[in-house]
């Protein structure tokens, strides 16, 4: 295996993580999450009004493979902030409830810290179309 071989998918993922202060790799989109864990993570970010970019990993199985190779984290969703992996749904949920998530993301949290239910009408603030670069 040649180390110098180019890996456009891995590069595109690394670039997306570097370019977006907060970025969520998920199954489906914030408007139509395809998995309960992704839906819950989106709901928590939206409850905090935290701006985030989202990447749907489902269109190409290589996105998930390369993402997990970069992060060392096997499951989806994965939330990154300032280039660092924050965690998956469980960690994001724990951090949301303790107020740590708002602190890490630099946003204000209202007094109600119980984890919100996913809202189907919710909107994301940004959507990174990573799959478009992977043709």
């Amino acid at each position, binding site marked *: 295996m040649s180390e110098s071989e180019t890996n456009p998918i891995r590069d595109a993922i690394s670039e997306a993580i570097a370019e977006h202060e907060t970025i969520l790799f998920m199954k489906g989109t914030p408007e139509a999450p395809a998995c309960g864990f992704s839906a819950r993570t989106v709901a928590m970010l939206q409850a905090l009004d935290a701006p985030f970019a989202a990447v749907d990993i489902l269109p190409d199985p290589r996105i998930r493979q390369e993402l997990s190779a970069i992060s060392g*984290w096997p499951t989806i969703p994965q939330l990154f902030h300032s280039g660092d992996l924050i965690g998956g749904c469980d960690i994001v949920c724990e951090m949301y409830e303790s107020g740590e998530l708002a602190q890490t993301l630099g946003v204000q949290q209202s007094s109600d810290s119980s984890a919100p239910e996913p809202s189907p009408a919710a909107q994301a603030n940004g959507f990174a179309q990573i799959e478009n670069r992977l043709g």
Partner: protein
Amino acid sequence: MPTAEDLKQRIETSIPGAQAEVEDYTGTGDHFRAIVIASAFAGLSRIEQHKLVYEVFGDEIGGPIHALSLRTEAAPANDAEPGAVNV
């Protein structure tokens, strides 16, 4: 198909001083929830603690094990005895 008991055994044998509670919350042998308390977690971040548990199962996560929801906690190093009570 793995059972909650299989997962519990594997976590407890692989991670030093670990005590695990595992639940198959869909009853279908592929979605699990685990609470793991281990002395090996001491000094590790939450991310690193969860990675240690995921490493026990390798490629099975995302394969036969669709989901493994985790809550981890570090136990004091001198409390590695299974069933020991913290006072």
